[in-house]
């Protein structure tokens, strides 16, 4: 990838990461808005989905009666198996009209003075992408977290309950044990969100733009590559796209590294305590 992106690296240097013009005609390539779109959409999706999916996992692993747990688990896993194009289509035909006609007018009406909810409500845009991503990531985090919670020895729960803990207090203890696993699940979910291409590109509006507003179109790295690679005819254009892939790869490595570091420091703290 480095070799492939060499012409672009030599031409633009760091400006590739800091400039915000993506202009295939003039052959000026700056990836900042695209990197911004990728990171913001993934992080926001994670923020939305994390409490939900951990809630689902706790419910499935700890409190759900068996007759409900089986079909529910099956449904959650089914959600993980839906191809992303189908999510994208659902986004276009269900989510986007709903956002355009109901959610976005409401938000701009009530919170219109915040910069996050300004601009024309088209439905397509960052908000739609964030919601689609959070729905796609939910089953991954939820089903892995459920398995992690299950793998905590039953004796832990029994011990807590025997000491007079309430059900919720016992669950908290179990959660603490399962934390590294849940964290790993979250990272896996984040990985999927960052790399997701099809469903995102179908609803995000596809314009390299940095805007605080969730209503505005945005762009992600994976979408840009998928969209423009087949027709990128010039050497520099092609190598800029490959450099984009390189950046995506590096960001993934950084996130993974940070996650490892966090897990490692958590484990050390526990061992000490």
């Amino acid at each position, binding site marked *: 990838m480095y070799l492939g992106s060499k012409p672009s690296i030599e031409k633009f240097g760091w400006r590739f990461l800091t400039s915000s013009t993506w202009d*295939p005609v003039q052959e000026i390539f700056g990836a900042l808005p695209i990197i911004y779109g990728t990171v913001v959409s993934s992080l926001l999706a994670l923020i939305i989905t994390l409490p939900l999916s951990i809630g689902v996992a706790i419910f499935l692993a700890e409190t759900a009666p068996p007759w409900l747990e089986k079909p529910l688990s099956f449904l959650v896993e089914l959600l993980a198996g839906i191809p992303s194009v189908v999510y994208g289509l659902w986004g276009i035909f269900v989510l986007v009209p709903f956002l355009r006609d109901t959610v976005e007018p409401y938000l701009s009406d009530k919170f219109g003075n915040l910069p996050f909810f300004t601009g024309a409500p*088209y439905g*397509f845009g960052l908000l739609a992408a964030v919601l689609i991503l959070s729905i796609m990531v939910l089953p991954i985090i939820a089903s892995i977290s459920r398995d992690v919670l299950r793998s905590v020895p039953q004796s832990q729960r029994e011990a807590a309950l025997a000491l007079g803990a309430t059900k919720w207090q016992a669950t908290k203890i179990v959660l603490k044990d399962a934390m590294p696993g849940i964290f790993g699940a979250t990272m896996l979910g984040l990985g999927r969100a960052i790399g997701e291409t099809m469903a995102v590109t*179908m609803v995000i*509006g*596809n314009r390299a733009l940095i805007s605080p507003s969730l209503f505005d*179109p945005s762009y992600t790295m994976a979408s840009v590559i998928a969209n*423009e690679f087949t*027709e990128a005819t010039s050497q520099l254009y092609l190598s800029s796209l490959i450099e984009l892939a390189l950046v995506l790869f590096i960001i993934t490595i950084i996130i993974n590294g940070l996650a490892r570091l966090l897990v490692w420091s958590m484990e050390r703290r526990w061992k000490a305590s």
Partner: protein
Amino acid sequence: MKLRNVIAVLFLALAVSSVAKAQLQLNGAGATFPAVIYSKWFDEYKNLTGVQFNYQAIGSGGGIRQITEGTVDFGASDGPLSDEQLAEVKAKQGVEVLHIPTVMGGIVLSYNLSSVSQKLKFDGSVVADIYLGKITKWNDSRIAALNPGVTLPNKAILVAHRSDGSGTTYIFTNYLCKVSPEWKEKVGNNTSVNWPVGLGGKGNDGVAGLVKQTEGSIGYVELAYAVQNKLPYGLLKNKAGNFVDANFNTVTEAAAGAVKNMPSDLRAIITDSDGKNAYPIAGFTWLLIYKDMKNETKAAALVKFLKWAMEKGESYASGLYYAPLPKQVVKLCEKKIASITSNGKKIK
């Protein structure tokens, strides 16, 4: 042991069958837009002669890359190669590449205005200014001036464009460059550009989806796609000053209008073309053929196929929603095809 025997037999069977089928196969790759008619041609031609084609619709950019690297027998592209690209092929492969136009496509402006029932009229500068973000409302005085008697709603215009690199975008932006100096200076002409406004949809279906879903939107899609999906689209004012509806006849007429200025290498862009009824946003799609080929059997087969395509193949075009080449252009192509050689020798 048993399983291994079974596998061995399977492999043997596969090998035998592929030897039995070993016949001439020509490999090609490139544009997706003409892929439908190309596969029809290849299929018909295989029934006639037994020559097999393997065409991969990987996009014009891919087609140009493959022909530059010499990994295919022919390429296909919706945009002509630039002079630098031609020089690169010459440097890498040692031969020239010929452009052979095959069929044509038009690009229409589709819109979604439920309150307007008749076809809206546009002209080049209005379209350019809509896409520049200078005209933002449907009841803008300049749109109203082109459409007397139509009550236009006081609605914001949502601009939709292609997000993926595409020959359609190339032709559309080429047209905008011709009709608007400001567009030429600020945005320019390519398979994807830095759009000043609007939302991007992936593929014709993506743009059509944006338009269908959003009241007050406008987007450009291929004529064939618009016809197949019954999208409403506007009339466009051409160079001669007439408002022209896009259909296969008016697109073909655009090519006819361009014949007299046709460059000898057939790399003609036919947007904003002369001709009373010429539709202004139209373009060729080309097959890219090496002028001289090493493999004589392949060269002969390819030349025969091209001749067949020009004589018989064109008649399939309109049934598959492509505009056929006008007679004058077919003649130019046939001359070009006759100039293809194999190892320096003419092909009979």
